[in-house]
């Protein structure tokens, strides 16, 4: 936890130019944003807002697992902005020299237990997810939500008893929505976005799963002005308001 806070402090200090307050005049063309799947709803809204503010600008998104996006970028995909659901995947991109400036931390997320409506499995806390008799979906340890789940079980001193390790958080959520599992560990924002189709259960160990979302413009961005405008919007008051409304915490 201490290490996380230290890492966050460094990231925040480093800044991404969001505080430059530079002019965004002449922002036009197409800006391509690679963003973690959990940002889908809130970023789509912010993209529309940016398009309204800058006529002639089109914001295009590629939403996928952060690790998928990071490997696409290191394999040469072209984009203007990268927003990751954890600092590890941002590091992958930073270490390959694809990021133009140090990333800014703009949101935080924690894990929550998602259960089908009515909680048919009678799930009350993390201990139920360590019960082999229950049907449980977790994210695979290779992806950020799986890594965070590992931290939660470590903190609770429990051994997880999953029946499937899903390749991304939306797949785990889908298994809950279809009623095929009694519970899954997903992000609080996923529970928020799923509306009535799932119920969320908070648990004390979730504080150990706090993950930071860094965002940055990319070195080879075809549209640097558009990239900067998008990052500025995300880190502005309006952006922070939208993120909070979507269930994110703020750094």
């Amino acid at each position: 936890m201490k290490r996380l806070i230290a890492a966050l402090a460094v990231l925040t200090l480093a800044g991404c130019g969001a505080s430059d307050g530079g002019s965004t005049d002449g922002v036009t063309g197409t800006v391509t944003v690679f963003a973690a799947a959990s940002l889908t709803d809130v970023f789509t809204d912010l993209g529309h807002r940016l398009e309204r503010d800058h006529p002639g600008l089109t914001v295009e998104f590629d939403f996928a697992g952060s690790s998928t996006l990071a490997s696409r970028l290191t394999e040469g995909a072209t984009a203007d902005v990268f927003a990751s659901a954890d600092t590890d995947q941002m590091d992958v991109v930073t270490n390959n020299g694809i990021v133009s400036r140090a990333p800014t931390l703009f949101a935080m997320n924690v894990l929550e237990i998602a259960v089908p409506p009515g909680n048919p499995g009678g799930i009350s806390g993390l201990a139920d997810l360590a019960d082999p008799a229950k049907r449980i979906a977790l994210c695979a340890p290779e992806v950020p939500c799986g890594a965070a789940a590992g931290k939660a079980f470590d903190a609770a001193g429990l051994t997880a008893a999953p029946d499937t390790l899903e390749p991304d958080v939306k797949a785990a959520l889908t298994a809950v929505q279809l009623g095929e599992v009694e519970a899954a560990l997903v992000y609080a924002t996923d529970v928020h976005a799923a509306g009535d189709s799932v119920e969320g259960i908070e648990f004390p160990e979730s504080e150990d799963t706090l993950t930071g979302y860094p965002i940055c413009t990319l070195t080879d961005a075809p549209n640097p002005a558009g990239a900067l405008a998008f990052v500025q919007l995300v880190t502005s008051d309006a952006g922070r308001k939208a993120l909070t409304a979507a269930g994110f915490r703020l750094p």
Partner: protein
Amino acid sequence: MAVAFLVLPLVGLVVRAPWSTIGPQLAQQEVGQALRLSLFSATLATLLSLVLGVPLAWVLARSRIRGRSVLRALVTVPLVLPPVVGGVALFLVIGRTGILGRPLYEHLGVTIPFTTTAVVIAETFVAMPFLVISVEGALRAADARFEDAAATLGADRWTTFRRVTLPLVAPGIAAGAVLCWARALGEFGATITFAGNFPGTTQTMPLAVYLALQRDPEAAIVLSLVLLAVSLGTLLLLRDRWLGRGVAA
């Protein structure tokens, strides 16, 4: 040109493979587990496809039932459907809350998703059309007069099928089975959706490759090469042993 197009990506895999660390990569327990599960489930899916698919192909090629063209179109549905959607469709039918799955779960306590059975079902769903279509093609190409001759000589339908039709279309069935097996071995979308991903029970090689890609692309390349080597080896072996030279794998 066509050969280069098909082979160059393979060459890319071989070139990028981390040959120096390939030993430790292969020694990981999950690799053997995933490979065994892949071979086992693809083989079972092929057997299931043979049992269900050959009679279906016969109906499509020989019978005069109404709605045969509709039936043929339905057979190709899994070929067109994105496999991930196929996986969701399987949930809706034999999932825990599915049309057939709910009574199965409520009365017998049987759940199919996230088990090895689910892997075999998903693979069969996606791969069987390959077998049905090639067997149907073989049946159409086979001369039906031999069957008529057998019938006039007093052979009943079953004897005719067993002694005349089957030997005639055996190469077609073998080719179909090979196609079906290869497709089942590489199946990803329907499997990860319907069967989930758990080492030892549902994590087949393609799933292991996909997840390795998230963490360590080099490991993913190694796993892909293993899968390729094993499938090519098996196909070549089968071709020499049983299929004769008449069938191209």
